[in-house]
């Protein structure tokens, strides 16, 4: 039962708010959060709608385990049609606001239309109102957070907001909650800005109480927390080093994309790694990393809390950046660092702070800067466009400058805000964009981790590592070791990961638990909380249903099998160093096999048979 069974519909055009019962039939098929919100989204929006027009909708959705004591049960997702990809955008975030929303009594908030002027949504349990936010427009996420806390007179209130980048039209703007957690990818923040919705402030005091079998739930969640604690990755690696534990590992296996993916190894990887973050700085004797931190209910606590050296050139005259804030996760450290060739840890941390402060995705940003640097080296972008800033690989100054420009959307920042694909197209060199479906790659080179090539190519939201993290198997041996350099069996592996992940993303739990948990560990927790007889098989089936639903929607939106592709660089230019030397991404082998396993046509189309098998809308 752990759904509140209540959704909120906010019509921003009219400024009206209504309440509806949750469709429990759908909940039984799509679980919650990612899956269930997608089902609502597919039902209610035209796949051809303009992502930044009033016909697009923006859904904030929790899962049935969000707000409960299940470890990591604090997740929510933002579902919309993304402006970067034109595909379904579904960004997942931790922090605390998801649980707060659930505790206020809501499974989901559906925002539709467009407000005539800036507003914020204020939720205190069942008291919901739209407040004018003209005074917040033009403010960063951090300032917005501070002003709302003051205005609403309540330190406990949780806030999700967009920053200046979203307002300026950056296509990969994020929704930032709790100051430094992000529904980061695909431009969900840009959609929020297009609706003139500046922020959502939530205070929930009702709690999550309708757990089906409380006694069994407490027992089984306690047991599963123990599993996390005893696992080397979730019990030791992630708490101590964060996702940054991967930096040196991925570099060593020759899968760390460097300088806009021209290389697969970064000479300064060790300077921007987890180990480097823990090392006391020469200048002030303090390490970059202050402590680890958890999201709501998380017993792993992989989050990083960091400071920048006060004397570092990025912040020396800016005391507002001297305190602690969310530090580098692996993907951000890679995008801001390796992909741009910058080995200055504090400069990366600064850029990361700015990404959070003004709300944009550090992966897409870093990768776009990398593309811009290549354009600059090629002489296509010149100092004329960049106010004289030399966009050279390895330049920390350039990185910091780019971050500030994207934050404000001024000058060349507007170009950078287009994302890598549109930037490279604008300057006539589309082949330099390292994207799939318009979204930038994350931190694993498909030449060194073959499964990730298929992952990127087939992800329903554009290049993304979180849709099927085969790195777990290919590098870490979870659940079993596969050869990262081989394409054998990767189609099946990717499908299995995609389906399982779609299920996990719909429960309210964090996908990082799957380093230690399989669906066999998750199912009893869902089942103790929710009616419906949840088994691992039922979860997996729901995951596959969700995957197909997403795929169906993006095909109706106009994407085809031809978009399941990788940039030429990865398909033609072999890795130059490391264990993957001489390798290219073997997508041509994996993709047909994948379509076949999925039961799709050879050009990647869903069939009516598949639709009816999963009960998808015709």
């Amino acid at each position, binding site marked *: 039962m752990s759904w509140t069974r209540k959704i909120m519909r906010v019509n921003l055009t009219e400024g009206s708010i209504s309440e509806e019962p949750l469709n429990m039939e759908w909940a039984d098929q799509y679980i919650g959060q990612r899956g269930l919100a997608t089902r609502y989204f597919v039902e209610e929006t035209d796949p051809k709608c303009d992502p930044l027009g009033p016909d697009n909708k923006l859904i904030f959705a929790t899962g049935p385990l969000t707000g409960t004591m299940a470890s990591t049960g604090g997740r929510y997702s933002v579902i919309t049609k993304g402006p970067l990809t034109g595909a379904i955008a579904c960004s997942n975030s931790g922090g605390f606001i998801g*649980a707060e929303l659930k*505790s206020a009594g809501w499974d989901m908030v559906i925002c539709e239309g467009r407000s005539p002027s800036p507003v914020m949504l204020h939720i205190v349990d069942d008291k919901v109102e739209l407040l004018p936010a003209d005074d917040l427009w033009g403010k960063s996420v951090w300032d917005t957070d501070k002003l709302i806390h003051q205005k609403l007179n309540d330190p*406990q209130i949780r806030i999700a907001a967009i920053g200046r980048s979203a307002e300026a039209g950056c296509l990969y703007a994020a929704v930032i909650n709790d100051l430094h957690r992000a529904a980061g990818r695909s431009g969900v923040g840009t959609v929020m800005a297009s609706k003139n919705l500046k922020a959502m402030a939530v205070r929930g005091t009702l709690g999550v109480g309708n757990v089906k079998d409380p006694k069994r739930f407490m027992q089984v969640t306690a047991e599963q927390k123990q599993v996390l604690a005893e696992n080397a990755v979730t019990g030791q690696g992630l708490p101590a080093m964060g996702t940054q534990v991967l930096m040196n590992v991925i570099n060593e296996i020759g899968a760390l994309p460097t300088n806009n993916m021209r290389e697969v190894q970064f000479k300064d990887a060790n300077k921007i790694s987890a180990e480097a973050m823990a090392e006391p700085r020469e200048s002030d004797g303090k390490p970059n990393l202050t402590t680890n931190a958890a999201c709501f209910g998380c017993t792993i606590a992989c989050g990083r809390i960091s400071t920048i050296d006060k004397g570092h050139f990025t912040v020396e005259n800016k005391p507002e950046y001297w305190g602690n804030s969310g530090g580098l996760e692996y993907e951000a450290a890679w995008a801001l660092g390796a992909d741009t060739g910058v080995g200055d840890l504090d400069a990366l941390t600064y850029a990361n702070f700015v990404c959070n402060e003004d709300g944009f995705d550090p992966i897409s940003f870093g990768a776009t800067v990398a593309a811009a640097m290549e354009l600059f080296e090629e002489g296509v972008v010149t100092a004329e466009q960049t106010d004289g800033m030399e966009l050279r690989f390895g330049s920390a100054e350039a990185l910091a400058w780019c971050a500030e420009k994207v934050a404000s959307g001024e000058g060349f920042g507007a170009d950078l805000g287009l994302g890598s694909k549109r930037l490279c197209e604008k300057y006539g060199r589309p082949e330099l964009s390292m994207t799939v479906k318009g979204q930038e790659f994350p931190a694993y080179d498909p030449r060194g981790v073959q499964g990730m090539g298929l992952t990127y190519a087939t992800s329903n939201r554009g290049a993304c590592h979180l849709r099927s993290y085969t790195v777990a198997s290919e590098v870490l041996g979870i659940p079993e070791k596969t050869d990262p350099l081989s394409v054998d069996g990767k189609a099946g592996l990717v499908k299995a990961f995609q389906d399982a992940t779609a299920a996990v993303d719909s429960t309210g739990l964090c996908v990082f638990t799957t380093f230690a948990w399989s669906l066999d560990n998750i199912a009893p927790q869902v089942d103790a909380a929710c009616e419906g007889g949840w088994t691992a098989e039922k979860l997996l089936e729901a995951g596959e249903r969700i995957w197909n639903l997403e795929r169906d929607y993006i095909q109706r939106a106009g994407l085809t099998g031809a978009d399941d592709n990788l940039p030429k660089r990865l398909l033609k230019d072999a890795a130059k160093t490391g264990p993957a030397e001489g390798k290219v991404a073997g997508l041509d082998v994996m993709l047909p096999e994948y379509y076949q396993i999925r039961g799709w046509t050879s050009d990647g189309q869903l069939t009516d048979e598949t639709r009816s098998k999963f009960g998808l809308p015709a």
Partner: protein
Amino acid sequence: MRLALFPCLPADLRILYNRVFQSSKPECLFVIISFDTHANLCHNTLHSISKFDLINDQGLVHQIGDKQMLRSLNINPDKCTGCLQCEMACSFENEGVFNPAKSRIKIFTFHEEGRFVPYTCTQCDEAWCLHACPVEAIKMNRETGAMEVLDSVCVGCKVCTIACPFGTVNYNQTTGKVIKCDLCGGDPQCAAACPTEAITYVDADATGLEKMRAWAAKTDNQAHVN
């Protein structure tokens, strides 16, 4: 060294502890207390100095219940990750829902400092809440040492909420009663749920309550002349 205290109130012991004992060699200290100390008032204080000999004016070793069994919540903010498992466990135990807003333990986040501080009632010996209650609705549980709110007696006047200088007694507008930590009757769920041992339930001797006591004298309304 021999110190005589007459008469002896909890505050005597605490002030003595803070100002004298900490700077002295414990093995040569004796406290003479002149009356059968009321456990309600004194057990925590006495407990915190239990490594010293306590003798009354008849020269007998002072007995105060089963104080060796008393345990306290020990909080180590350095280990806290801010996950709020404790708040959920607390609210689930006491309210039947996962609801940090109704938790008796609270994590305070110091964003700029990168620090998380769990905070709850330390069942202080001074028990301002207990003394302030006009209708005897707060009583000490002799098994656990916890100051417990008796819901059936509490009228909801909120005097204890302003009297507690630690801010750990809160008014629950829904029920019209006050709520505070009661150590879950001796099995505190916050400690059980904490994944990092930032909150543990240990012998009172081992806790960091002294920190709190170090300043508490300032909040006391009485000082003892001799």
